[in-house]
């Protein structure tokens, strides 16, 4: 693949909270239409990476290039219209607002709500349609995750950032969500997913990056990463986790 095809390129990104550095200079690339997974343990800097791309956190140094835009210099609300949408860690659905209005908020950057798209989201997650007049705060964890993903799709993004979509969910729901992600990817949306559930993430994705305390320690094809001994030991926990998915 040629470099000009790169959709998102991170170069030597450094981020710190006060005196504690969270990212110590990472670089990664995402190509159009692929699914890229970032795996790593708690506190490795996965969420920080996504939040920095979305403009919620200011980078200390480094670049994030997206179709010629330097994202580190753009405020969060102007990044969404460029086609980058995020479903954040902990879902952060708007609890006191109805499901449908949550989806409408997802389309905020479009000025006009695309109702056809809303129907597509409802097809993707039929549970949401059943509960569209319910307050989002009353949904179950899995439903909230669906809503968070659905909401992030409403602005017709070119690139979707998913932060721990499987966190705290029962295996059956994880399966359902990951199936939906695959479906979303088929529609041509580029997906960058951050996961602690490394196995599921690598099975879903085309390529993967391994993040360890603020540094990328390994990257490559997901299949190869799944086979790598080092990764199996560190993140796939050989036996037990096999049964999860």
């Amino acid at each position: 693949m040629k470099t000009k095809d790169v959709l998102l390129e991170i170069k030597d990104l450094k981020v710190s909270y006060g005196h504690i550095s969270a990212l110590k200079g990472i670089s990664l690339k995402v190509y159009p239409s692929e699914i890229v997974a970032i795996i790593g343990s708690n506190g490795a800097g996965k969420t920080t990476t996504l939040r920095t791309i979305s403009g919620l956190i200011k980078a200390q140094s480094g670049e994030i290039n997206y179709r010629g835009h330097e994202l580190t210099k753009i405020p969060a609300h102007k990044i969404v219209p460029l086609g980058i949408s995020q479903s954040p860690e902990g879902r952060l659905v708007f609890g006191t607002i109805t499901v449908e209005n949550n989806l409408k908020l997802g389309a905020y950057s479009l000025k006009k709500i695309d109702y056809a798209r809303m129907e597509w989201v409802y097809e993707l997650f039929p549970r949401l349609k059943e509960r569209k007049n319910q307050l989002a705060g009353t949904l179950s964890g899995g439903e909230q995750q669906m809503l968070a993903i659905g909401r992030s799709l409403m602005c017709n993004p070119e690139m979707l950032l998913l932060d721990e979509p499987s966190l705290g969910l029962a295996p059956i729901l994880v399966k359902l969500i990951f199936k939906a992600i695959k479906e979303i990817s088929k529609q041509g949306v580029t997906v960058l997913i951050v996961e602690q559930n490394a196995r599921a993430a690598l099975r879903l994705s085309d390529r993967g990056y391994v993040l360890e305390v603020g540094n990328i320690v390994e990257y490559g094809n997901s299949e190869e990463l799944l086979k790598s001994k080092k990764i199996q030991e560190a993140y796939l926990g050989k036996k037990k986790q096999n049964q999860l998915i």
Partner: protein
Amino acid sequence: MRKSAIYKYLVFLGILLIYPLFSNSSWLAIGTTFIIYSIVALSQDIVLGKAGMFDMGHAMFFGIGAYISAIMNTVFNIPILWAIPVVVLISAIISVLMAMPTIHLRGDYLLVVTIGFNIIFQQVIKNNVFGLTGGPNGIFGIERPSLFGFEFSSDLSVYYLAFFVLILILIMIKNLETSAVGRAFHYLRLDNLAAQCVGINTRFYRLFAFALGASIASIAGVLFAIQYTVISPESFNLMQSILFFTIVIVGGMSSIPGVLLGTFLMFVLPEIFRDFNTYRYLVFGVMMILTMILRPRGIIPKKFGIIPKYLLKDK
């Protein structure tokens, strides 16, 4: 306590000790009130700064101390220094009674509750309950105390009486900071949940902080009654509570030098600029905004060596 810190305190106390030599009677009065207000501010800091409870009604306890001692003195002719134990006991009891049902409230709600108590207290003393509080006039003719035959009749002697109490309070707070209780307060302030997990009885320590703050403020109230021999409701109203609250935030929460400097800035400075009668409070308001923008954690914030800074941020 580090050695350099001791020197700083000694310099501060030394200045206070010789201050009367350089001051005329009006500056002596301001000095005495500065000391009394410092004590109130330090007690406010125990509740607000150290234990992290948003108390915006602290002048009430200051007032309870002043009023109870004044009533005991003028109605029952009890020497005012003898009132101190009674005052401490009563204000501790009142504060615990007040705090018991409300102490679990978080941040701003507690702030509102304490404002409410302060306003209720104002109405009680203004309505001259049982004919004791003198209504809006307040209480006149409080007698200055005597101790072991020494009469605290001169303003200078009252200054040194207040100075002596300030030293006692400073020593007490210093000891508190390094004690187990002080550490418990510290965790309370950082994170209530974490404190509970570590096994701290958060409810007990919150009540304790409240009662301690109230008692110290009430002692300052007695000193206030001694200094002025006249007390009236507006010395203990919500505006005064806001003053003490602001002193702690402007000076720096949980920091003794900060609170002392805050008292100086918020109380003594307007006195220095008396000549600008009508303009000074306008400028003062601007200064409050500026101070907060430039030093959001107060002018002399408390330094916490081991705890990473991002933990200290209020969410």
